[in-house]
């Protein structure tokens, strides 16, 4: 290929486009993490909701600040989940964020937090009203399943993009 940016033949342009396309597909392939990553996220997520629902409700006081058992579990969950996400990203050396702007990322983060909190509150409320442990387990399993399906859907869409135009 000519180093001169002022002149380029159509064949050279086609070659450059093909090589860029190959690399872009490699990027999509790298963005798709293996199954087990989604599975472990889902298991952690389900375990968190189940534990919150079935644990005995207590209040702990540390240095004059009161924490409910649910809050303690939520903090412990954050301490496990966020380093784990960082670890999986570092392990595979590449990841995709579907929200590139800080505003979009913030919105996605708070939406997930709000959804999680709503699920927890509904689970705890029904659990307190009817004292049904199995309900917390059911909500946990359904939430885990939902998060796994979401992860898998994203993974498959990335893989599909990595194969797009492969045989052209």
């Amino acid at each position, binding site marked *: *290929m000519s*180093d001169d*940016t*002022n*002149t*380029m*033949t*159509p*064949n*050279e*342009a*086609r070659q*450059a*486009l093909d*090589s*860029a*396309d*190959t*690399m*872009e597909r*490699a*990027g*999509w392939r*790298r*963005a798709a993490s293996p199954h087990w990553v989604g599975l472990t996220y889902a298991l952690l997520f389900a375990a968190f909701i189940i534990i919150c629902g079935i644990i005995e409700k207590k209040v702990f006081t540390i240095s004059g600040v009161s924490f409910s058992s649910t809050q303690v579990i939520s903090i412990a969950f954050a301490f496990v989940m966020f380093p784990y996400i960082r*670890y999986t*990203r*570092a*392990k595979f*050396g*590449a*990841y*995709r*964020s579907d929200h*590139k702007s800080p505003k979009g990322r913030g919105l996605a983060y708070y939406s997930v937090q709000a959804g999680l909190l709503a699920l927890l509150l509904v689970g705890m409320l029904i659990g307190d009203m009817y004292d049904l442990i199995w309900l917390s387990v059911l909500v946990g399993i359904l939430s885990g399943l939902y998060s796994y399906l979401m992860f898998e859907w994203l993974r498959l869409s*990335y893989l599909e*993009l990595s194969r797009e135009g492969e045989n052209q």
Partner: protein
Amino acid sequence: MNKTTLDSVIHAPNRLQICALLSPLAEAEFQVLRDELEISDSVLSKHLKKLEDAGYVKFRKGAMNGRQRMWATLTSSGRKAFSGHVKELQRLAAVING
């Protein structure tokens, strides 16, 4: 031969490939770029430096298992320049069919 408005920084084949690989990703590690492009560390560093100087790529250092790792991100101006460059290549390539 056709007159073009190609981006002189992205024009080099390896730099075009780096931008293409980074375009669907939020971040990629140095090692991933090297493995996909199949080039040496020194050649990759040289190209990344040129992209960084143009403001198209930025870096972050992170540690894993006690080892320093470098992560590269395509900046918004890098994405814009890459997209413009690809559009221009498409325009040029269309001459074959047209």
